[in-house]
């Protein structure tokens, strides 16, 4: 048992997920308290250099053909061996489709405590974000090895980056036979008309837009400003906008110059995807909506009263 921190690197199809940087930053923060090293744990096949930009002390690289794709079974088997051997103080995973597939199984298999939805650490305490971001729960980091899933928002990804590539140490992976989960194929999202993750000006609509017909209000504003319309999950689930316009945990993360959020509450799954924005302006009649915690400007004016007036003023300002 030691005071080291493991960060399970998340990557998909050759690209490092941004959560890996956030976790690395969190790991470094925690390591300051525990006094150990921070290891990036990288699993896969032929991805040994993927962790080069992480600010880790070293990379433990577990390579196996069975790990070429992420599967809960494969990662769990490989990690349980490693964690059992090394017994770090904490293992950080993403609170994502990857991390949460593995965390629970590891907790039960290894008999180790699990804390999820952790946003940041304060000394040796974890602070988790629950109930749609409305409540924070704090407690002591459990012993002997705390399994953690981390949500974005507590650390800047830049804090987890490093120009100097850490040393990669290959670790032998035991037999990974009889995996019960395997990948048949990947299905890319439909190539849409626009890639919202590259757009500088986004007008976002949420549940507050109320129905499909009102989306035209956002369309008009977007056209006037020269921006693109995107949406949070409730809107896409109802098919009022295509999936290519989804901003959120299961959609795209965006970092526009301006993100105008209309009728969006700011639940964590959406919020985490827009924190990279330069300026968030939120329009929501609920003054207590969490979006106002991450927005730069906000108003409780009803969007149905505001948007048409705004569109007109924009057109006027543009010389219309």
């Amino acid at each position, binding site marked *: 048992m030691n005071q080291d921190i493991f960060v399970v690197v998340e990557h998909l199809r050759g690209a490092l997920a941004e959560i890996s940087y956030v976790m690395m930053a969190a790991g470094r923060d925690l390591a300051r308290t525990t006094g150990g090293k921070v290891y990036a744990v990288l699993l896969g096949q032929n991805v040994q250099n993927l962790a080069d930009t992480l600010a880790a002390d070293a990379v433990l690289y577990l390579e196996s053909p069975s790990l070429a794709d992420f599967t809960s079974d494969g990662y769990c088997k490989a990690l349980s061996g490693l964690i059992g051997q090394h017994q770090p103080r904490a293992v950080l995973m993403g609170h994502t489709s990857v991390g949460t597939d593995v965390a629970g199984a590891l907790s039960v298999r290894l008999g180790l405590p699990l804390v999820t939805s952790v946003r940041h650490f304060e000394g040796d305490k974890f602070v988790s974000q629950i109930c749609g971001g409305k409540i924070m729960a704090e407690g002591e980091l459990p012993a002997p090895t705390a399994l953690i899933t981390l949500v974005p928002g507590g650390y800047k990804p830049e804090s987890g980056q490093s120009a100097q590539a850490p040393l990669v140490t290959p670790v032998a992976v035991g037999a990974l036979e009889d995996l019960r989960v395997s990948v048949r194929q990947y299905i890319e999202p439909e190539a849409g008309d626009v890639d919202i993750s590259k757009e500088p000006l986004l007008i976002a609509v949420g549940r507050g837009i*109320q*129905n*499909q*017909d009102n989306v035209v209000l956002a369309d008009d504003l977007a056209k006037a400003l020269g921006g693109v319309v995107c949406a949070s999950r409730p809107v896409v689930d*109802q098919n009022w906008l295509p999936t290519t316009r989804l901003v959120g945990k299961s959609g795209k993360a965006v970092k526009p110059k301006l993100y105008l959020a209309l009728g969006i509450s700011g639940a964590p799954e959406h919020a985490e995807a827009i924190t990279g924005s330069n300026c968030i302006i939120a329009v929501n*009649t609920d003054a207590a909506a969490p979006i106002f915690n991450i927005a730069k400007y906000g108003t409780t004016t*009803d969007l149905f009263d505001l948007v*048409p007036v705004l569109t007109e003023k924009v057109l006027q300002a543009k010389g219309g």
Partner: protein
Amino acid sequence: MIERINFWQIPDIWHYFAYVVLPVCALVMLVRFYNRIRLWWQVGRAEMRWDQPLSRLWRLIKFAIVQVKVLGQTYPGLMHVAIAWGFFVFFLGTALATIDADFFKFLRGSIYLVFKLVLDSFTVVALIGMGMAAYRRFVQEPSRLTLDKSFALSLALVFGIVLTGLLTESLRLAAIAQDPALQPGWSVALAGWTPTGWVVAQLWLALKLTQEALYNVHLGLWVTHATLVAVFFLTLPVSTLVHILTTPLNIFFSKLDRPVGRLAPLAQNAQKEAIYVSTLRDLTWKQLLDGDACTECGRCQDACPAHAAGTPLSPKRLILSLREALHRDGAALAKGNQPAPLLVGEAIEDAVLWSCTTCGACVRECPVLIEHVDAIVDMRRYLVVEGRVDEMLQGALANLGRYGNSFGQSERMRARWTQSIQPKIKDARREAVEYLWFVGDYASYSATLMSVTQKTAEVFQKAGLDFGILYDGERNAGNDVRRVGEEGLFEMLAEKNMAVLAKANFQTLVTTDPHSYNTLKNEYPANGHTVLHYSELLDQLIAAGKLKFTKKLGYTVTYHDPCYLGRYNGVYDAPRRVIEATGCKLVEMPRCRDRAFCCGAGGGRIWMDEGNVRERPSEGRIREAVALDGVQVFVVACPKDVTMYRDAVKTTGNEERLVVKDLIELVHEALG
């Protein structure tokens, strides 16, 4: 003394035509008619509709004989009444003539002359009516009519009957003019008692035909007339003229058991299970009669806001779908016990049923008293129980079930609008009050309406009313939940409201929302409380001098009668008196009172996906108001109307021209 000559110059052999052939044809007509109508009770469910026979008879006189609803529209009304009364008179005339011929001779002297005059006049009336009908059918061609060849043939048939009747009579007159001995007691002086016949007779006389020729032509026309009548009998059951028999039945059996604003509860079968209407067998015999009685006039369609907006609903098409289904499948279903094919989702699409705002304009317009809304709600109940509900409506219903309001906000927030009111409004759950104000969802939760609700409270306070509200004990009254077809949810909400109301101590229930008003008044158990709409209360207060206006507003306004206040509950004058009392000048809209055109929010539509509409009903209504000279203010008395019309004013670009105000805002302003 002049008297009627039976079968004048008609050889004996033809008497058999009248006494044998025609009665046989009439019998055939009745038998064929019976075969058609028995499908109603063989296929449809039982329903008791023969209580209060005298009231029903009165309805028959009002609507089937005098035809007051048909007369609701001037041109087609006069047109139809001319033809119909003509035929009533001819029928009566034939009956009297038969009595005179075979039983008791009384058509003599002045009685006879009057008899002739009446028949003659109505011949003209009927012919004018038919001329109007031909003009309407072939020249005007209004879109709401079914412009089918078969209808034209029916018109031609009845025209032929009346014309041949007139010609026959005119030939008799021509013959008698040439030889007055043919009818003892007749002289030219009496020609004025048969003016039309006499005028036409001149044409024959001008031809200078021999008596023999006149008799022959007379016989020929008489035979033609009788034959056409036989054809009339034989074809009636399968032509549009069947409405002569079906509509009186429909009118006689129309809904008497409950007020217009009360829906029937779910029917139950022998095993006490609820019956959901999805096939012909689930409909009652009266609903099948509705289908058969429809004359395809299309007035319902013209009045329907959903149809005007371009949604798939046409009340006329809906009722005719029932008829078509009955004619297609009825006979087979009557014979066997096999399950009936699905109506809902097939002949009648889901979207058709969901488009209805339950405004009741169709029911009000229908000259033969068809009950469209009841059928629509019955079928919606089926859709709801099958879960065929669109996302938005599902969300609203889930919110209503969980939070008691459609906004999805906690019930604890219901009275948040009261925070700024001083003194604090009484909690009617804790203290006895005289007036219990049932505020309603929209007035409580909608940000747009908060100031209107607050003004209402202020007005009540200024009037010195002893009133209170239920705070978070109130739930949606359930009117539109019921009209959407969620009967179970309605029961749940009503139970909750009734439990709270039972514990409260009050005299009168007053509400700002006409929908709540309707259900509280008509569908909640009576319990001895009066239920008032706030316009009625204001009217009473003004009359009693409790509301003293310091200002005369002087606006020129128009007033929109809310469907559930006006058409459903007959409250038209109280709001108008209130408007006048505030010193405003009222200009009526073309479609006002029971003809008011719905804003489109009712029947749960405000909770549904709008779909593709050509023009929203509310926008059409605003255009109607804007066309009125000098009108600056559009006055409403329903919270949903405030929302719908303020939106419509914006979307039609009339913000400079018209402002929408709730009645209470006028009162508040006039109180100063």
